[in-house]
């Protein structure tokens, strides 16, 4: 972390630029950095995708296993999202169990997929109350240059769309693999956009410089019908007014649609 004085000088410069509608890397306030997406990058995983958002680099692997359902939803498969801030990705990441930033990242990605009902979990039930499929979504940060949430939700969605399940038959309550694959039942496409409030301006897709000086952060995840399915305010000791949140919702509606076209082709 930079010393408070460096951060203050940086912030002054970034706020000055924003007052004239400019950003440090000359983007528009709502413009995303270049998005590169590759699907199926890990052959061993049932599904995978790598998203590069400028210099931010995220890989998501999906693994499928069998397990028991939760007792309150015996007829649904299980979704588990985990995030690792891998130490090689940033001088600020350290080895060890997930800290609060990793936990928050995983839970925001999870909420988008879960609340939009992106996966038809009922189709992942083999025997109600006894045997279901478990979908493990592991988010792996490879290089941290800001906006990990959006890069991770995009990569997670692309990885789920990319996921293939083996065909199977049930014999004596056991799963017997059959040749061939079927896609995971994906029925919705949640996309998140994350705003940073810097001074009194809202910007999208912050780089690390901007993230360091932002006052507050707001993530909105929307589903394919333009409904909001998850929101998370975070980051820093600032706040939003109700007017700013309404403005953000309007921008998010348009922007999520744009981004969805990049992540889900065809």
């Amino acid at each position, binding site marked *: 972390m930079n010393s408070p004085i460096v951060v203050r000088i940086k912030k002054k410069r970034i706020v000055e630029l924003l007052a004239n509608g400019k950003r440090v890397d000359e983007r528009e306030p709502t413009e995303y950095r270049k998005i590169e997406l590759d699907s199926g990058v890990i052959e061993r995983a049932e599904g995978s995708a790598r998203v590069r958002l400028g210099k931010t680099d995220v890989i998501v692997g999906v693994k499928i296993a069998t397990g028991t359902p939760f007792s309150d939803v015996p007829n649904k498969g299980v979704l588990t999202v985990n995030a690792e801030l891998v130490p090689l990705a940033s001088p600020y990441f350290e080895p060890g169990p997930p800290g*609060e930033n990793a936990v*928050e990242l995983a839970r925001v990605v999870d909420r988008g997929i879960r609340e939009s009902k992106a996966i038809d979990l009922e189709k992942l039930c083999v025997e109600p109350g006894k045997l279901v499929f478990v979908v493990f979504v592991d988010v792996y940060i490879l290089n941290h240059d800001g906006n990990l949430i959006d890069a991770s939700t995009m990569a997670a969605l692309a990885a789920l769309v990319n996921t293939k399940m083996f065909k199977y038959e049930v014999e004596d309550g056991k799963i017997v693999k059959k040749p061939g694959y079927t896609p995971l039942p994906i029925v919705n496409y949640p996309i998140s956009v994350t705003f940073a409030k810097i001074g009194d301006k809202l910007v999208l897709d912050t780089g690390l410089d901007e993230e360091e000086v932002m006052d507050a952060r*707001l993530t909105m995840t929307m589903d394919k019908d333009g*409904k909001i*399915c998850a929101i998370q*305010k975070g980051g820093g000791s600032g706040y939003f*007014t*109700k007017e700013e949140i309404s403005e953000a919702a*309007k921008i998010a509606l348009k922007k999520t649609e744009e981004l969805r076209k990049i992540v889900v082709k065809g």
Partner: protein
Amino acid sequence: MKASKKKTKQETEKKSAKKAEKLIDKKGVRLDGRKLDELRPVKLEVGVIPNADGSAYLEQGKNKILVGVYGPKEAHPRHIARQDRAVIQCRYHMAPFSVDERKSPAPSRRDVELSKVIREALEPAIFLEYYPKTAIQVYIEILQADGGTRCAGITAAALALADAGIPMRDLVVACAAGKADGKLMLDLMDTEDKVGEADVPVAFMPNLNAITLLQMDGNLSVDEFENAISMAIDGCKQIYALQKEALKLKYVAAEEAKEE
């Protein structure tokens, strides 16, 4: 196998429909007799833990929450200290007996996230720059949970901070609105939250018109979402009056004791 799967699906659908039907009756009255835009009864008290620098107790419906504040004090471990401001160490914790099925006292991922967002909801209110290199500890214990504990925790924590004499820009007050049974409603209790379609917790500083916590899960249109925020802010303002009352009451009580 296919047939049995179908059957269970029908069963669950029937079950949830039955549940949903019960949430609001024909007159728009909820399970506990509240109207859609009505808060649960809120009880607040400050100065309840003698050892703490500041403390507060809250009841909101069946929620029972205790908050203790220590500090500003020397930051431990030392590397967490900031040269230009105080740091807040916040722990949201549920007692093992606070919910139907015993909860392990070890922090869950949910607890870790809530501790973080609650801290970020309180930080904007506090003049952190007055106390560089120190830590302020906020311990939130959920003794009994009945939905909306993060909001109730924030409401109580702000009171405990004020009780500790920590300079603040405003009290932070929090309340959730949500959607259940197809209708927007204020201050969801556990059953409404679980069966309902969406939950929008909001923390607010009324004097600054500042939203310091905002989360959502579920499914809402942009319009519904904006109405939910307005509803939650109205709820916040009602609780805000009770917060101020509770703070005053402590000093009135002290004054009366002196006179006697």
